């Protein structure tokens, strides 16, 4: 039994999306519960991806491929996971701030968060402060994550926090920021709750905040 879960984790790590989907189905047929498969197969594999990415053994393209495999497995499991099975740690609204079209880093964080059991709402790129406010209003997330890849758009992270403050919603969410030029000092200056230097750390930080 444990073999097949180990195999799912390994194939996920290798980015074999079709094989992962097949293995998940097989595991279900063999009587394993969706929760077991998610926790000890898919998430276990994604955790290893995160660790090796952090250590520099994996690079962005490999992580993206692994995440695609994760999705393939989730597509099989999702209809079977009841609300109580789903290990949702919390809702997470994520987006790249206004004026910034970079999305690779943001997507990576999103996939890693999903791998860790977060339910994510992706607002995409070039997201205006007011759009973040509306998303918080609509989805009532635990955490809002903002990405910026340009020093010229970093200031829009502050504008977004300003907009959440003005709307009276700042205290209802935790705010995380990240992106290549962003620093912990910057996060503190603009009044964010946390900063993460990379996608794997982002998951650790989000778990602490949730």
């Amino acid at each position, binding site marked *: 039994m444990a073999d097949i879960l180990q195999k799912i984790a390994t194939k996920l790590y290798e980015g074999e999306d079709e094989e992962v989907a097949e293995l998940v189905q097989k595991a279900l047929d063999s009587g394993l519960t969706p929760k077991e498969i998610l926790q000890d197969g898919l998430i276990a594999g994604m955790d290893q991806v995160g660790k090796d990415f952090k250590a520099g053994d994996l690079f962005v393209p490999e992580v993206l491929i692994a995440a695609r495999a994760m999705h393939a497995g989730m597509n099989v499991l999702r209809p079977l996971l009841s609300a109580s099975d789903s290990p949702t740690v919390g809702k997470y609204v994520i987006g790249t701030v*206004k*004026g910034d079209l970079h999305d690779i880093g943001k997507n990576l964080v999103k996939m890693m968060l999903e791998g860790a059991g977060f339910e994510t709402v992706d607002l995409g790129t070039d997201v205006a*402060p*007011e759009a973040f*406010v509306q998303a918080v*209003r609509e989805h009532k997330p635990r955490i809002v994550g903002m990405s910026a890849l340009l*020093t*010229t758009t*970093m*200031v*829009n992270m*502050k*504008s977004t926090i*300003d*907009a959440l*403050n*003005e*709307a*009276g*919603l*700042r205290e*209802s969410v935790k705010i995380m920021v990240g992106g*290549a*030029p*962003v*620093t912990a*000092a*910057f996060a503190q*200056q*603009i009044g964010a709750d946390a900063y993460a230097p990379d996608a794997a750390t982002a998951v650790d930080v989000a778990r602490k905040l949730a």
Partner: protein
Amino acid sequence: MTIALGIDTGGTYTDAALVDEGTGQVLHSAKALTTRWDLSVGIGKAIAAVLSQGGVAASRVSLVALSTTLATNAIVEGQGSPVCLILIGYDRDLMREFGFEGALVTPDVVYVRGGHDAIGDEVEPLDEQAVREAVASRIGRVAAFAVSGYFAARNPAHELRARAIIEETTARHSDDGRPLPVTCGHELSVRLNAVRRATTAALNARLIPLLQDLISTVQRTLAEQGISAPLMVVKGDGSLVRADWAMLRPVETILSGPAASAVGAWHLAGRRDVWVVDVGGTTTDIAALRGGHPRLNPEGARVGQWQTMVEAVDVRTTGLGGDSLVRLDGERRLLIGPGRVVPLCLLASDHPDVVAELERQAAQGGDEPWVGQFALLQRRPVNALADEERSLLRSLADGPRPVTALLREGGYPLVALRRLERLEALGLVARAGFTPTDALHVLGRFRRWDARASGLGAGLLAARLGCAAEAFCERVVAAVSEKVARELVTKVLADEGVAADWTMPALDALFARSVGNGNGSSLNCRLGLREPIVAIGAPAAAYMPAVADMLHTDLIIPDHADVANAVGAVAGGVVQTWRVMVQPLPGGEAFRVHLPGEVRDFPTVEDAVAYAERMVPAELAAAVRRAGAADVDVHIAREDRVAMAQAGWGHEVYLCTELTFTAAGRPSPAR
């Protein structure tokens, strides 16, 4: 020699103090009981007493300053006039979904289109027609208007335009051509949070008529006493404003009492960094004084259920004072406060009959919680009451009566008790009972009123515990001191960002051991404060030496500690602060300065800052003179908020520049 008259209306007493403006010396002081239903009655008595006591001619008083609990009490008790709140550019659905509509103070709220964004650009033009219609339909129905615009802290244009429309419309419809008062959110705070600015603006509007009444009756009282000096009011940060200015910004006078007491402590003790503990009749207030100024609450003062954006003294208030009700609960544990009652000794000195009743109760014995308590009439009702409530009031017409008797006559005792409590909440009836003040009378440490009544009251409670009256009174006094010590430690921790949870057994045990209640524990704990304690308030000397011992901390009880609030009222300066922000516009090609009345763009940060530094000081100095200052100094503090980007990404990121303009002067003797 010019003389300043300071007045403080506290929960129990109204104090008056005459201070020599040249030397700062307290010349005379007096107290009168606070008359909650009309504060000017107690104020008049206190002023008359202090003038006659000192033999000071009224004409020599050159300044009068008042610190008052009126605004705080009115907010807590939900009093005030009907007001209409106009919200510009607010998202009504969001307000509803997040329960923010409950923070709007008034049920009469109008949403109109308009508002700005984070950089102060207009999102939508102001719907002037909607404002006009809203105002027209409320003529004769509201006493004041409040206006709050979305991001008005970054661009007040819509609030200012709405105000102009309201003033024009209401002036046209009024008999004397004068407009109704209008409060704009951006005048009270330029910090972000549209909900809290709306709360603050609405509270302010609702208080305006109340404060106008108080100030005009106080001015009449002053005139009757022959005082023609200008009247100033203490704000919640301890500074002063002229009465006519305070009438427009009444919400800024919340917590003026605790602020005045902190300033008074500094004035009397001559120490700039201390913990100020003000032990009053009703409450004990603790505040930090740093560099001679009360430390303010950056989050804004919370009063009753409302989180305001008023920067007032960060005070910790506990319902514990000389007149707190002392009682035993079902398990015969000693409880003190938070309710305030008339001490038995005071009651008996006005109504000697109660001594006989207490003797009767002592002879009879009894285990009911309200043994030894009385109810007495305070004032006539102004509103309609239920029949049972009226008959209860009638039964008190000839003087105070024991609570046990009232409950026996009122049908079911618990129903009768609720009825009594409702009349107390309305201020129609007061409860009398055993208090720490009575304990001091029994122990002979305080002698002003009838100690026999105190002794009998102590005997009733002590009998239930099976101890002697004196031993019981020692326990009460020690319990008050320990509670104050605990509150002081809680306050210090809170200021350091730690919430003290005394329900944690280990924390509670450590505290008990450190204040000497360790019952032979092997742990040797000591708590101490780095800064000395300055204790003020009438009963400070009775409780605070023990507090200082428990906390191994220096204690200063200055002369005139009993009227420190009134002294503090005249010791403050006139101060106004304006905050101006410069921020980059998208693209980083231009920089916008947000001034109190306008926004303007410049090619560089320095150009924007230079413009603010050129324009603001003169305007602010004029404003602070209108608020009653002379010899005005303007001070500018600049903070550039810049953060470094990650190494390899080159430059630093410029976020904004915050300019804080502070104008301060001494109170002007000119009217």
